[in-house]
C-alpha cells in the first residue's frame, strides 16, 4: 500500500468525500450569491442569515406545525424566499442605482438584526433537529462509513446547482434574465416585466440559501450564528470563483470544500484560514477570480 504524505489512501478517499459534502454547502450558498450579484448587482450579506432562517424554518415547522423534514425542504425555502421578496420590494429596489456599498451595508445590517433577534429568543447553543428516519444509518464504503444523510446532501445539492445553472444558461427564461442584466431598458421595451423578474430572482437566490439551511439543520445545531460562521467563507468562495459566474461558483464551491477537507488532515490548525490564503493568491494572479470576466 502506498501512503500519501503519511496518510493511508483509504483515509484520503474518506477525506476527499467529506470535502465534497462540505463543498456542496459552499456551492449552494455561493451559487445564490452569484445569481443575486449577477442580476441585481447587490452583494447580499443577508445570505448567511437567510441560510440560518431556512434551518430555523425547518425547526419551527416541526415544532409548531408537526411538519416533517420533507415538507420543510419545500416549505421553508418558499417561506424564506417570500421574506426575501418583501425585502427586495421594500428596501433593495431603491439601491440598484447606488454604489455597491449601500446594498452591502443594508444587507449586513439586516443580517445582524435577524441574528440578534433569534439569539435573544433562542440563545446560542442551538436547537436539536433530528435526521429524518428514512436517512438514518449509513453505508460502509470500505474506506469510510458514509452516513446516508450526507450522501443525500451531496445528491440534493448537486441536483439543485446543476438545475439552476441549466435554467440560467440554457433556457429562454435564463436568456431573458441575462439580457436584463446587460440592458434592462431594452429588454423592458420588448414587453418583459424586468422589475418583477428581478424581484423573483432575489426571492429565488434567498430560497436557495434557505434550502441549504434545511439540509444543514440535521447536521449542525440549528443556531442563530450558524450562518455568520459560514458566510465569510462563502464570500471568499465567490471571490475566488469570480463574482457573477454561475458555473464558477459551483466548481469553486466543491473544489474549496475538498481543499479545506485535506487541510483538516495535513494541518488542521489552518483549516479555517486556508480558503483565505487561496483567495489572496488568486486575487494576486487573477483579480477577476478564476472564472470571472474582467469588466
Amino acid at each position, binding site marked *: 500500500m502506498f501512503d500519501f504524505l503519511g496518510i493511508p489512501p483509504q483515509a484520503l478517499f474518506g477525506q476527499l468525500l467529506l470535502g465534497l459534502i462540505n463543498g456542496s454547502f459552499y456551492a449552494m450558498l455561493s451559487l445564490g450569491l452569484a445569481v443575486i450579484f449577477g442580476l441585481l448587482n447587490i452583494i447580499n450579506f443577508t445570505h448567511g442569515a437567510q441560510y440560518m432562517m431556512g434551518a430555523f424554518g425547518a425547526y419551527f415547522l416541526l415544532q409548531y406545525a408537526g411538519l416533517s423534514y420533507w415538507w420543510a425542504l419545500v416549505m421553508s425555502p418558499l417561506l424564506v424566499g417570500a421574506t426575501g421578496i418583501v425585502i427586495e420590494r421594500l428596501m433593495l429596489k431603491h439601491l440598484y442605482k447606488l454604489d455597491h456599498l449601500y446594498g452591502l451595508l443594508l444587507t449586513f445590517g439586516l443580517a445582524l438584526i435577524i441574528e440578534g433577534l433569534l439569539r435573544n*429568543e433562542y440563545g*446560542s447553543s442551538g436547537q436539536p433537529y433530528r435526521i429524518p428516519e428514512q436517512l438514518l444509518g449509513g453505508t460502509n464504503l470500505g474506506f469510510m462509513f458514509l452516513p446516508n444523510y450526507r450522501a443525500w446532501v451531496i445528491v440534493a445539492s448537486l441536483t439543485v446547482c446543476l438545475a439552476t445553472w441549466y435554467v440560467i444558461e440554457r433556457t429562454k427564461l435564463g436568456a431573458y434574465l441575462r439580457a436584463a442584466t446587460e440592458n434592462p431598458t431594452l429588454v423592458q421595451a420588448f414587453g418583459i416585466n424586468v422589475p418583477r423578474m428581478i424581484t423573483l430572482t432575489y426571492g429565488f437566490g434567498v430560497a436557495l440559501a434557505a434550502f441549504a439551511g434545511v439540509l444543514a439543520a440535521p447536521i449542525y*445545531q440549528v443556531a442563530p450564528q450558524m450562518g455568520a460562521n459560514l458566510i465569510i467563507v462563502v464570500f471568499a468562495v465567490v471571490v475566488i470563483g469570480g463574482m457573477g459566474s454561475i458555473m464558477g461558483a459551483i466548481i469553486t464551491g466543491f473544489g474549496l470544500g475538498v481543499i479545506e477537507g485535506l487541510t483538516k488532515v495535513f494541518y488542521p490548525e489552518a483549516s479555517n484560514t486556508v480558503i483565505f490564503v487561496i483567495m489572496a493568491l488568486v486575487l494576486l494572479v487573477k483579480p477577476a477570480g478564476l472564472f470571472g470576466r474582467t469588466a
Partner: protein
Amino acid sequence: MKFTRTMTLAATVALAIGAGQAQAQYSDGTIKIGVLTDMSSLYTDLSGAGSLLAARLAAEDFGAAAKGMKVEFVNADHQNKADVGSAVARQWYDVDKVDVIVDTPNSGVALAVNNVTKEKNKVFLVSGAASSDLTGPQCSPNTVHWTYDTWALANGTGTAIVKTGGDSWFFLTADYAFGHALERDTEAVVAKNGGKTLGKVRHPLNSADFSSFLLQAQASKAKIVGLANAGGDTTNAIKQAAEFGIVRGGQSLAGLLVFLTDVHALGLQTAQGLIMTEAWYWDANDNNRAFAKRMAAGNKGIHPTMIHAGVYSAVTHYLKALEATKNDSDGAKVVAQMKSTPTDDALFGKGTIRQDGRKVHDMYLFEVKKPSESKAPWDYYKQRAVIPAAQAFRPMAEGNCPLVKG
C-alpha cells in the same frame, strides 16, 4: 423569597434616605463589578447574561444595600478575543472605576485579563474559564479561580473512564489555551492510570464541521475519543459522532467539559450516557433548586450551569471580604482577605481558597440520563460519584505557582 425581596426593597429605600454616610471607604463610594463574558457566541448560554444575573442575585441576597455597600454592575462581550478582553479590562479599571471582573469564559481571554488585573492591582474572580494555568505558572495574588479547572475535569472524568477500561485515547482538541491545557492535563491522568494516547487533532475554535476530525479519530482505533473542547464545539462533535457511527463502531466519547446547556441543546436522545465532571448541579438540593428557579425566571428559562453558580458564590465571598476590610482599593489585599476566611454560601457550602488562588470544594461525576429516566425539562443528570475536595484539584505543590513557597 418574597420576604427577601421586600426586605431588599425596604433596605434600598432606607439607604437612599440615609445615603452618603457609610460609603466613604470604597473608592469613589461604589463597588463596581464588571461581568466580562461571551454575549454573542458559543459560550453565551452557559455563561453570558446568566452570569450577570447570578452576580446581581448574589449582591441582592448578600443584602449589600442594607449594609451600606453600593454595588453597581457593568457587563461586556469579549467576543472570545483576548485583545478585546484585555482592552475592555483596561478601560474598566482605568476609566470606569471597576473594582472586580468576574466570570470570563474562554481561557485565552482569562489569561490576558489575569495579567491586566495584576498590573492594575484589582480583583479577578474566574468562574467561566478552565485553564489550570491560572493557578499554576500564571497564578496571581489578584486572581481567584472559582468553579473548576482543566486538571479537575481531567482528574474526574479521565480517571473514571480509564478505570472502567478506556485505556487508549484520541483527542479532539480546541486549538487555544483552554483546549491545550485540558488535553495536557487529561493526557497526564490517562498515562498515570496506565492508559495511552494514540493521537490527537487540534481544530480551530468554533468549528462547524467535525466529520474530518471524527474520521481521523475513527481510524486511530482508540477506545475513547476525548473531546477537549467546549460549548458549541462539543455539541457539534457529539452530534456528528452519532451520525458517523463512532459509538456504534465500539468507540466511546468522553466529553471532558460538558455543560448543562450543552446537554439541553443536544437533547437526551443524543447525549444519554455521557459522563462528565462538574462542580455543581441545580437539582442536587433545595438551595440549588431555589436558585435555579430564580435564574430560569430571569434568563429565558435557561437553568443555571456550574459557571453561573460559581459567579454567585464568588461575588458573595468577595462582598463578605469587603464587608470586613471596608476597602476595595487594594486588590491584592482584598484577595488576601478572601483567602484568609473560609468560604460559605448557599450554593457551594463550605470551602477554602488556597494560596495559589484555587477555590477548593467537592466535585461530582455525573452521567446524562436516558430519555426515559428524565421526569421534567432540565432533569438531565444522575450523580455517579463525589470527588472529595482534597482530591478534586491539583495538589498545590505540583502547580508551579510562584506564590507558593517551599
